[in-house]
């Protein structure tokens, strides 16, 4: 159809007529698309990454024995460890089991002056001494330490001195199996600490699943951390969403204003086309198609740049490249096309102009 061929030919000429102008429009649209794609991609990823980052706060869930009598330490079977779901939403849950008892600690074997301390049998196995305890008893790294209880003895080499500011500073921790032998409680543990990643809702779900699965144990969140995490998470994700929304809206408006400005310069072209017999509708369609094509090109270029940008940003902030989300790509391209068309739409007002007045230079 010659008509259609003519249409595309005009479009080609419109686009190719002024390289500088084309470049400028693509730059504006591309910048908008890049920031849209980068922020959308980063926003989803950053929130997820943030919940992982919270795990630097340590354990947030505790499984303890349902104690019948206070003051009487009660224990759980260590087979519970196998029943704990090891992942939540694809992220690993780390579990640490403890068995606490009072034992005598000393520098060497044999029945001599030992100090009574809280001993924690711990799995995964460690051999660490709390900072305060180490200072008081003069323990250093690599020293051999002996723990005795009820005439049994175990020893290990100190691999770390723990300074936590918590109860661990006064404790010594040894491998769980050694602890179980010393306390004469084979296969028993006092509690399990879990570090559960994920959003506050995911953590709560995980806890209720666990409560159903382990009816005999007392599964509870460490409220100091779960509550603070939830509050901080909500604030940060709210902040991020709000900032991203504001930036996106303003960027869209800014690009639209720039596009409108450029489109309004087309007054002469519209006048000329109408003068040689172009119907208003066809002329308008011509310019809208041109804008849409520009939007498409700017969007594709910009979104690619944006996704690359977000991968780099993710690496810069969290040390792990943000995973590009495919949905972000078409969304930002579509948004760019919409903005480009909306920017050209005021040309519709030019439909009412009379060609003659344009040529007179009015």
């Amino acid at each position, binding site marked *: 159809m010659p008509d259609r061929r003519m249409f595309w030919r005009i479009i080609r000429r419109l686009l190719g007529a002024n390289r500088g102008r084309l470049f400028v*429009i693509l730059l504006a649209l591309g910048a908008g698309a890049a920031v849209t794609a980068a922020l959308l991609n980063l926003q989803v990823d*950053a929130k997820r990454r943030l919940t992982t980052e919270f795990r630097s706060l340590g354990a947030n869930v505790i499984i303890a024995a349902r104690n019948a009598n*206070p003051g009487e330490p009660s224990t759980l079977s260590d087979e519970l460890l196998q029943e704990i779901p090891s992942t939540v939403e694809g992220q690993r849950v780390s579990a640490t089991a403890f068995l606490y008892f009072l034992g005598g600690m000393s520098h060497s074997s044999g029945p001599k002056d030992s100090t009574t301390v809280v001993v924690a049998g711990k799995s995964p196995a460690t051999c660490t001494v709390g900072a305060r305890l180490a200072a008081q008893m003069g323990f250093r790294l690599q020293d051999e330490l002996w723990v005795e209880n009820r005439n049994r003895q175990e020893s290990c080499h100190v691999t770390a001195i723990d*300074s936590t500011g918590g109860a661990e500073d006064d404790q010594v921790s040894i491998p769980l199996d050694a602890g179980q032998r010393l306390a004469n409680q084979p296969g028993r543990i*006092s509690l399990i600490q879990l570090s559960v990643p994920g959003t506050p809702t995911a953590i709560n779900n995980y806890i209720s699943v666990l409560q159903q699965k382990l009816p005999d144990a007392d599964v509870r969140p460490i*409220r100091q951390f779960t509550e603070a995490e939830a509050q901080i998470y909500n604030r940060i994700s709210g902040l991020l969403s709000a900032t991203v929304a504001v930036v996106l809206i303003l960027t869209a408006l800014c690009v639209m204003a720039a596009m409108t400005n*450029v489109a309004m*310069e087309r007054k002469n072209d519209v006048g000329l086309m109408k003068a040689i017999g172009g119907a208003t509708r066809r002329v308008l369609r011509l310019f809208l198609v041109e804008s849409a094509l520009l939007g498409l090109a700017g969007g594709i270029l910009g979104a690619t740049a944006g996704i690359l940008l977000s991968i780099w940003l993710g690496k810069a902030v969290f040390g792990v490249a943000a995973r590009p989300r495919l949905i972000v790509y078409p969304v930002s391209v579509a948004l760019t096309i919409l903005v480009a068309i909306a920017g050209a739409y005021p040309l519709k007002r030019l439909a009412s102009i009379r060609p003659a007045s344009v040529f007179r230079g009015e």
Partner: protein
Amino acid sequence: MFVRLVTDSFRRRPRHKLLTGAALALGMAVATAALSVSLDVGDRLAREFRALGANLLVTPQADSLRLEIGGVDYRPVNAGAYLYESNLSKLKTIFWHNNIIGFAPILEVPVHAWTKSSQTLITPIVDAPTNLIGTWASQSVALSDGGTFSTGIEKTNPWWHLEQGRWFIDGSAECVVGKSFARRDGAKLGDILNIEGPHQNIPLRVTGILTTGGAEDDAVVVPLAIAQQLAGKPGQYRQLYVSALTKPEDDFGRRDPSSLSPEDYERWYCTPYISSIALQIQQVLRVADVRVIRRVADGEGRVLTRVRTLLWLVTFAALLAAALAVGASSAASVIERRTEIGLMKALGAGSGMVGFLLAAEQLLLAVVGGGVGYAVGILLARVVGEKIFGAAPQPSLFVLLLIVGLAAVVTLLGSALPLRRASRYEPAPILRGE
């Protein structure tokens, strides 16, 4: 003549100028909003992290090791050392006293506690000791400068919630009981709880039921003065929790202060790192051992640093996009004026003159558009700030200057390229319409 040319250009094409200005204002609004939020948010976020509670723990230097398993301390009552309550107001005299947002002393005493609702009227139903925690609910500490500072356990342990009732009034014969204790004992609000301590017995009225999700659910919380009376340690406490606003520790903050040069030490001392605040507290409380609760402090530092970097990068991306869009818009406005430039040159204007004229126009737009954009951006930052933190960021002169400067630079840069090309135009072909 120059002024006339510029005003004429604005008057002749008001819509174009309006649109270029609008693009500029919107771009600068993006920049302002992102910048104000990032500048402001650091301190507010740090405050949010205080929801984690205390990040410093003060204990007596000579204190014995804690022998605590499952919330029960197996230490003999008389073992260990204590600190004096009267020294606490000194905490607010350290260099970073404004960063200390709360502290609460703790004195724990093993007691027997029971109410009338217990099955046996005179003896506790279980023979195991109950942990009694003496602390401040909400205490006004008189400061040396004449003011007072209100603090208490709710500031250092924000996850302690009252399920029912209210906190006790400090110094009165009232108490708050843990949820599990209340369930076991049957204690209700208004009941009289009998406390049998190592030295004397005291009846207390139950004013609230506490839930913490931890060992305190099995405990009884009483005013510090009551616990001191029960333990026979008037005016003393054993642990102090301090919640302080800190700057996340960087490489410099982690260095050993004793290895620093005098100037570096000064800088370290005058930065609110958790370790320098700990040292300052140690200096005023003397015989105390101030320990950083690493779990809270390190976790907070890490997340905070990440979030700040993230926000700065978002701001940077926003600035970049705004700059590109605005630059493109001003470039477009110059490109379209080829005919005008040709005409001016034909009439005898030099390239410099033409460039100067256009630059002046752009600068005028930049100042006006930048100003309007700043106002819009501050408004949006206010909305975001109020919605999320309940407090608006302060408008700052620095941001205003930065934004107007940025607008000027971006518009000039945007127009520079087409202007350079324009200076090479030969007027004749342009006027012929080629």
